């Protein structure tokens, strides 16, 4: 019965997502939806390393941006989209491997700081290696790919293509997390020493997870490139790394829906709410602070907790325990060990 309900709501969600352009109306909102999806892929990718490996990266915009830059440069050089995409992902994985080797020298805050430094170096290179990146002017591309002959120029087909990539990402990450390797990864997050003593190669597990995270960051970077048809140093800035990290944390780390909710929150605030609220940056900051106060574990797990608490309370006595829904302590301490 429960499985049936789960299947039903999954199908309903899929149907809603697929038919979104039909009922959302304006192409502007369809584009916003595409952005939510592409940032959700990015956040899901980052969550692999932040949520499941317990390693906080503040340099992932570097990987995202390297994929976008590589794609843009290959396309500008005259290669086809297939070569550009494949090439960009290979380059991204190569750089992710280098990032991982360096960053995994540290754990906890050491890891964070190494990723900050790496991200800043990528930013410096993007800014300064003008012959390759065109400096602060950035690189424009004029076309989007046409898979199976379907043009992605218009908002709707681009949305559907992004949706397909998004669904593949969600499925891949869901399978990954539930797999024996995913269990091993979560083990290295919670008890790295113990895992080592149990026979696991903790370093290699983290390394591979970093590559997997980098791969999805790269895929998101390519979506970003094709969406904007433009990439510039701001794409790889520290603020961009911080932004996607905020998506992951605010939505809820180590959950599948959390990063998606976080991407939705940030993209909507930045792009839609900013049209109505002049001081949207202040409001966004206030929302983050409010999340920490009321749902320190993130929006998705926090809402679930409140929901469970509310329904249990209703089922029990109306005057049940008067205390607030208990906030689990340290439930989102990431890099700590």
């Amino acid at each position, binding site marked *: 019965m429960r499985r049936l309900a789960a299947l039903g709501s999954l199908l309903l969600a899929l149907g809603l997502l697929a038919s979104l352009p039909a009922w959302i109306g304006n192409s*502007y909102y369809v584009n916003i939806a595409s952005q939510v999806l592409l940032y959700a892929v990015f956040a899901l990718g980052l969550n692999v390393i932040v949520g499941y490996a317990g390693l906080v990266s503040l340099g992932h915009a570097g990987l995202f941006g390297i994929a976008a830059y590589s794609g843009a440069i290959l396309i500008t050089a005259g290669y086809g989209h297939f070569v550009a995409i494949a090439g960009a992902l290979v380059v991204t994985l190569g750089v992710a491997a280098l990032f991982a080797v360096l960053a995994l020298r540290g754990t906890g805050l050491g890891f964070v700081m190494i990723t900050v430094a790496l991200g800043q170096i990528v930013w410096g290179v993007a*800014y300064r290696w003008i012959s390759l990146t065109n400096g602060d002017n950035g690189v424009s591309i004029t076309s989007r790919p046409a898979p199976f002959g379907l043009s992605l120029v218009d908002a709707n087909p681009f949305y559907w293509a992004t949706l397909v990539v998004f669904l593949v990402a969600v499925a891949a990450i869901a399978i990954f997390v539930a797999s024996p390797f995913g269990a091993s990864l979560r083990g290295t997050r919670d008890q790295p020493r113990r895992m080592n003593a149990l026979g696991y190669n903790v370093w290699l597990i983290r390394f591979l997870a970093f590559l997997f995270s980098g791969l999805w960051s790269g895929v998101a970077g390519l979506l970003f490139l094709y969406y904007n048809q433009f990439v510039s140093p701001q794409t790889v800035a520290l603020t961009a790394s911080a932004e996607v990290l905020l998506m992951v944390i605010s939505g809820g780390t180590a959950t599948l829906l959390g990063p998606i909710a976080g991407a939705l929150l940030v993209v909507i605030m930045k792009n839609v709410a900013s049209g109505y609220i002049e001081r949207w940056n202040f409001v966004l900051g206030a929302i983050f602070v409010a999340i920490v106060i009321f749902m320190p574990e993130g929006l998705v797990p926090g809402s679930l907790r409140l929901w469970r608490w509310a329904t249990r309370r209703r089922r029990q006595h109306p005057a049940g325990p008067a205390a607030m829904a208990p906030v689990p302590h340290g439930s989102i301490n990431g890099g700590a060990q």
Partner: protein
Amino acid sequence: MAPRVGRRTFAKRVGAAALAAALPMPAIAEDKPIKIGLLTVKTGPLAQGGIQMEQGTNLFLKHRGHKLAGRKAELVVGDTGGNPAGTKTKAQELIERDHVDFIVGPLAAFELLAISDYVAQHKCPILSLAAAEDMTQRKPNPYFVRASGTSAQAMHPLADYAAKELKYKSVITVTEDFAFGYEQMGGFQRVFEDAGGKLAKKLWPPIVTPDYTPYLAQLSGVDAVVSGFAGSNPLKFMKQYKDQGLTLPIIAGSVAMDDALLKSFGDEAVGTISCSGYTADLDTPSNKKFVEGMVADYGNIPGIYAAGLYMSGMVAEAALEKTGGKTDDKEAFIAAMRGVSLTDTPRGPFHFDHLGNVIGNAFIRRCERKDGKLVNTTIKTYKDVGQFWTFDEKWFLAQPVYSRDYPPLKG
């Protein structure tokens, strides 16, 4: 049953029809307002210029009673956050959701470049003060109009003035390490060297440079220093320069000595010579009205950001008057814009070249203290300055765009 029409209603209708027939086209279209999209930056480090852009636009609409060519004018503002991706999204919002008739803004070159192709695809006219040279040169956008000028447009006359009137033989240039800086100094270099001057060094501090001392330590052995800083950097640079006890004269580009920035400067700015396509002290009726309005409404002496948007508004207005208030035919609308020739604007008379870039005055000013306040006083006006200066357009466009390494340093 036929609908009853009362006498008074009938009279009104006839009157309205008669009025409509008597007036030119705009009045007919009056029921549907003209929608103007403003792309600007209201949050983050670039907000300084962005807020002034919005002020300039608001003041213009206020002066026109929120009516252009007889049609009601509506402003939709998009905050780009100062980044290219945000600019793209806001441009989509303005074009696809709000269906604006044209866009004014954005502020920075990298913002404009991120949406250039997009607005061209949607045939949306865009009037920006972002100074990227190639937008009206090697990669022109047919829907683009620029009433402020290219990066180098004020630097060419500055170099001319420095070499011929100030008789400087050698200079060091210093400006931020980004395209706007390269283009400014490239333009300066070409004209200065043609006039027999020499660039000893070109220094490029990163945009974020809290302390300029590593660059100040390299400023010696020349007649003057050319500064092309933008945003809040001119303030930091000039102050640190003075504190360091350096005494070489400074000559500056338009935004480095922007009139709106003067209230933030101290004595270190006195004596600095700069060149700009707009100057607050220009004595024209429309500039007087503009400056007084800015002071009254916002308490600010305006600079090129507010003036650029005010003038963009004037260009759009003049074009609308030519098309009879119609914007449906985008090609006709943009052609009308590029054909605009105004005589009384805050920067004096100007018109556009065939690429959509302004041809107008460039003002050489000296910063002075008057009644306790810093002001830029115009000391020379170069008339009808275009983006190609005195160079042949064909030759100019055959050269690479000004960059960090082009023109290369001699010797």
